[in-house]
């Protein structure tokens, strides 16, 4: 029985790069064309299928025309076309087609594009089915992408072979800021991806010996739970590592929100600043549990806007618990804060311990500019 795999290509992704533009959001696509930009996605899509080896086990659902169908004929896989598109394509096409493919039974979605495409896929299907992101954007920040088209092929093969899946981050990049050489990104959501050691050379050992991301998160959770004090109010920030802790406690946490736990009970779900400050009135001892955003290392100021300067000040630097898997933390040069309050950012800077496993920590520098 062949696996049903969807393919969506964003035909304009990456076109800004060759002509010095950073991204094709807004009116930049037309500007890229004026400057003589050529499509990037055909090459990436061909590279992907050139390296997929499990060809006898895949049946493709492809988007029409330049969003997929144009490539399907040459890859030698059985395919059928899903949906319709017009002359010009947009984000709404990506979202609609992703939804339709899942409704038509796609078990895996391959998308070729950039961070914007990943956000569209995230909007459309969330974590319903695993995806493989083939990087074709100008600059890719979201951890949900494969390292290269070849690595994406490995992920497709791994999915066909039945590996586990894991959540990876999708970031919201402000392309206007990026054009000004400022990296303004925040956590947007999560996609499920096949869990493979895609970045390593053949035979190269990983730093986390034989452990999957899921197992590492469970180890972190066990450590944090062991250290928890029933008298203290814990605020768990967004992310899968924080969620692994509440999962292990048998509590239902929102993936992108801030949730509050006291004495093993969920006392606040997806709380905002006001909700947090209200909770503080009954609890003099508080701790925040946060995980850095993959790729840029922000622990405050991006992705957890509920942790306002007022909230952080009332908790205190010494009561901030940073958690993250070693593989994720290893990808960071440092941690960062950008709360919008310079004095607080300065107070948060310095060294902190990041819990990366059961009774295992890494000391990292927090920077603020």
């Amino acid at each position, binding site marked *: 029985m062949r696996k049903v795999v969807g393919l969506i290509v964003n035909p304009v992704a990456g076109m800004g790069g060759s002509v010095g533009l950073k991204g094709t959001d807004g009116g930049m696509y037309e500007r890229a064309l004026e400057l003589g930009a050529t499509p990037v996605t055909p090459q990436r899509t061909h590279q992907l299928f050139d390296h997929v080896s499990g060809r006898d086990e895949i049946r493709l659902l492809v988007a029409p025309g330049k969003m997929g169908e144009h490539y399907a004929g040459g890859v030698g896989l059985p395919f059928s076309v899903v949906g319709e598109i017009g002359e010009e394509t947009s984000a709404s096409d990506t979202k609609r087609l992703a939804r339709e493919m899942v409704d038509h039974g796609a078990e895996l979605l391959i998308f070729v594009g950039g961070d914007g495409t990943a956000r569209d896929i995230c909007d459309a299907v969330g974590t319903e089915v695993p995806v493989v992101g083939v990087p074709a954007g100008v600059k890719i920040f979201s951890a949900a992408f494969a390292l*290269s088209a070849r690595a994406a092929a490995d992920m497709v093969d791994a999915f066909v072979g039945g590996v586990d899946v894991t959540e990876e981050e999708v970031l919201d990049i402000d392309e206007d800021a990026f054009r000004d050489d400022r990296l303004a990104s925040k956590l947007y959501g999560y996609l499920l991806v096949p869990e493979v050691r895609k970045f390593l050379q053949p035979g190269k050992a990983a730093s986390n010996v034989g452990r999957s991301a899921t197992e590492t998160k469970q180890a972190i959770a066990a450590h944090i739970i062991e250290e928890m004090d029933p008298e203290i109010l814990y605020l768990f920030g967004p992310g899968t590592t924080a969620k692994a802790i509440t999962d292990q406690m048998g509590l239902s946490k929102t993936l992108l929100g801030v949730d509050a736990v006291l004495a093993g009970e969920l006392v606040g779900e997806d709380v905002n600043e006001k909700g947090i400050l209200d909770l503080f009135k009954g609890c003099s001892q508080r701790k925040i549990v946060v995980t850095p955003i993959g790729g840029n290392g922000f622990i405050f100021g991006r992705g957890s806007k509920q942790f306002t300067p007022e909230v952080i000040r009332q908790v205190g630097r010494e009561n901030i618990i940073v958690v993250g898997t070693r593989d994720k933390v290893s990808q960071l040069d440092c941690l960062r804060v950008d709360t919008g309050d310079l004095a607080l950012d300065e107070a948060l800077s310095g*060294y902190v311990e990041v819990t990366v496993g059961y009774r295992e920590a890494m000391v990292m520098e927090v920077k603020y500019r």
Partner: protein
Amino acid sequence: MNVVKLDMNEMPYAPPQHVIVAAGKGLSDLNRYADAQGLRQLRELLAEYAGVSEHHVVLSPGSDFLLREIIHAFSRERQVVTVSPSFLPTVQIADRFAPKRLGIRLSPPDFGLDPDLLISALEPLSLVIIDNPNNPTGQILLDRGLVATIAERQETLVVVDEAYFEFSGVTCAQLVTDHPNLCVVRTLDKAFGLAGARVGYAIAGEVFLNALSSFYVSLPQTSLYAATEALQNSGYMRRNVSRIVRERERLWQALRTLGACVYPSNANFLLLKAQVPDMAQRLRELDVWVSDMSNQLPLGYIRVSVGTREENKMFATRYNQVVCGS
């Protein structure tokens, strides 16, 4: 096309003829284990080379075996403190066997280690293992003063991995005489160009000697003969180290000229931060092997061993080819 192998920090020059001849003599004794007298002689030579008494020297078939043994022996009741990135086997062994671990992150641009941070991170019962120069950054993280300061804490055990000592000239080996809780681990794999012989050794303080006394060590005959000869006539090693240091600086300059982000080094390798995240894989496809550091550092970091001039030129050419083609 021949592979340009720059991924294991090996000496690119073959051992001299007198060492090869000595190893050949070992072949004729292959029916016997290495005899105690020969092993004793090697320990004496290593002690003389390190400037300590023979009593402090422990042999091992590779320095990673010693690190493994030390972690086995001492980590059960102690917090193991390492830096990150570090020599990967140390990280892996600690990860597997030490119940409590702390890594101190080294960050660009200098990848330095703040002495106050290190000291403040220590619990009363700690086992500190630091490679000096650090692998893969090539940075000197410890000087004798800092090692002595840490070793003054008698409950703390300090292990300094000096695998690349000959390229840096920085050592704290002689401190073991006054600090029983200090151990320096070295190897003949790198500067002596005997990676295939796998001869490691510890210069150990009394606490470590007691623990390692049950660590029975023999060596293959060929390794014993080669190591003994190499230490008795070590001029070739010093010449090769000088050549590698000159080539390292030449390669560093060439890469800077190409616009590469390459860090200064005190070892026989360089650390680079490439803008191409799968640089190591791309170079491998061009038959140039380097070490991908993405298991300990962000994507794009690679470590390249300093090779012969031709190998270094090939690396720089291929590196530039990948950068320009991306």
